[in-house]
């Protein structure tokens, strides 16, 4: 087996993992603080891609890069305010079903606006061309996307670990009543976290668009993946989510060599394994999804 092919696939896998990480972190944060499974997360991912594809020819790459996440964040704000606030505190299943409904309706709206055909995003000027190293030719654009994702992840990590806001959010994940009692406005906090999650999803959509093409099902496709990764990594843990995302990205990428047809099933098989053997995930400290088993193990 050609070592070059493996290296290329490895890089692809890392890039894949980074994008997955951006999506999954947003999902994990919302799940952590609100105890709500946001199945509309994938929809926001899709909107990020579509809106970016739509406005970047008009106003340019970088302006679109900044404006699109803001638009998607706005959508997230509306979804949270109108729908999610009604399901806090109830069985997480309700949140799942409601957001699934939103996702279905939203996907249809995407189809109404932009049609059912897959769109293609062209490479912007600044990142065209290839990089040569170690006997491999790798597209510059992919490296740029990987770097962008990495920067996003580092920023969120800084936000969560270092900033005041992050500390409050982390505390809110463990005990939301307490931080409410300490004077922090919990609904506003949840709303803000949801917006952050939406922005992350939107940005991931922008990054992923040129790689995978833009199609209306990309929302539901990535959703279960994000969920799996969030669970494997452990809810509420950014480190775990990133690690899990990278692992899945690399496995998916390299798996094409070994089991090409079943590669798509790998995340689900991992999900089953995690749910059976380690429901808390790698680094998570919280099984906030309620009772796992009939009798606690």
């Amino acid at each position, binding site marked *: 087996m050609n070592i070059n092919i493996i290296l290329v696939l490895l890089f692809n896998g890392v890039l894949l993992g980074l994008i997955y990480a951006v999506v999954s972190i947003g999902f994990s944060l919302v799940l952590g603080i609100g105890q709500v499974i946001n199945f509309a997360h994938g929809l926001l991912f899709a909107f990020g891609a579509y809106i970016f594809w739509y406005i970047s020819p008009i106003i340019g790459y970088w302006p679109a890069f900044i404006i699109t996440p803001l638009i998607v964040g706005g959508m997230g704000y509306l979804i949270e305010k109108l729908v999610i606030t009604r399901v806090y505190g109830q069985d997480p299943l309700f949140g799942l*079903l409601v957001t699934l409904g939103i996702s279905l309706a939203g996907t249809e709206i995407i*189809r109404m606006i932009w049609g059912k055909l897959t769109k293609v995003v062209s490479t912007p000027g600044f990142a065209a061309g290839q990089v040569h190293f170690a006997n491999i030719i790798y597209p510059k654009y992919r490296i740029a996307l990987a770097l962008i994702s990495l920067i996003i992840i580092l920023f969120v990590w800084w936000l969560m670990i270092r900033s005041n806001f992050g500390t409050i959010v982390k505390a809110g994940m463990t005990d939301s009543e307490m931080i409410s009692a300490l004077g922090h406005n919990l609904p506003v906090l949840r709303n803000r976290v949801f917006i952050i999650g939406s922005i992350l999803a939107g940005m991931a959509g922008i990054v992923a668009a040129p790689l995978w093409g833009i199609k209306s099902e990309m929302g539901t496709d990535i959703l279960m993946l994000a969920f799996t990764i969030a669970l494997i990594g452990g809810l509420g843990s950014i480190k775990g989510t990133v690690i899990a995302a990278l692992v899945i990205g690399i496995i998916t990428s390299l798996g094409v060599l070994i089991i090409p047809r*079943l590669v798509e099933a790998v995340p689900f098989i991992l999900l089953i394994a995690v749910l059976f053997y380690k429901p808390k995930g790698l680094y998570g400290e919280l099984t906030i999804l309620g009772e796992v088993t009939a009798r606690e193990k």
Partner: protein
Amino acid sequence: MNKQYNILNDPFLYLLIFFGVFPFIPLLGKYLSLGTEMLIWILYSLSFNLLLGYTGLPSFGHGAFYGIGSYVTALVYLQFINNSKNIFLPVLAASLIVGMLAYFFGFIIRKKRGIYFALITVAFSQVLYIIAFKWTEVTGGELGITRLFRGQFLGIDLNNSTRYYYFVLIIVFLGSIIIRKITLSPFGKVLKALKQNETRVQYLGYNSAKYCCYVMTISGIFAGLCGGLYCLLYGAVFADNMHWVKSGDVVIATLLGGGMTNFYGPIVGSSIFVLAREILSSVWDNWMLLYGLAFVLIILFMPTGLLGMVERIKEKKHTEQFNNNNNKKKKDLEGIAHKEENK
């Protein structure tokens, strides 16, 4: 507490009458495949509701049972039946094989509850979907298996739509009665208790895990049966029914009618669902938008479904009447007391 069984009070009688004359209803009756699909969905959602409404197990992967039932029927049919063309064997094989799969699956996850249960069912069903989609040699992959003809059953040729409709009606009717019996039996009562308070049921001495495994098996048997009937209805099988998003269809159909609180909820819900889906999809290409919105609205404002609302209205009227009676009695008593005082 057992009232004497009065057949005139049994909704099944009226349902049977309604569906019996369905083909003769003007305008609507022509759409026999629609009616047949409604019947299949009734049995399918009843089987699904055994898990969700009765035992409180949210199964999001039920489409897998349905889809595998379809595939098994198609494959058995192609392999064995080409000569005698008896329809019984493929459909029976579908129920049994899916039943075994459901038992196997139910055994593995017999101790999972709530969200974790839902997630595992999604994961499993998605793996099966991917296998069905990619295993082109067996399942036809994206193209599926097509051009199947219905054989005959007990000498009656079922290729005629009307005959197949009545065939399905009989099977669905019998299946529904069986499920009804199950829910009314001691087994069914334990299931209902499990939904409300599992720990208490365990302390009463029941092995709740076993019950969950068994109900999964029963549910799977009927779901597989429905899948088989569906396959023969349209003469084709495709993998997309097994996708987890599609599994949401039966969830919404069940919830819409009131499956959480009423046995007949799924019947009402799936009839409306199949009908609405047909009408809407032929009128508006993007009808899924309404579907998603309906999803949201039902979960937010009507989780007990239509029959649940009917029950609530009935209860309100009942308590109103009760209060009125009480107020009347109070006034009478006060009137008497007044007269006593004034004496």
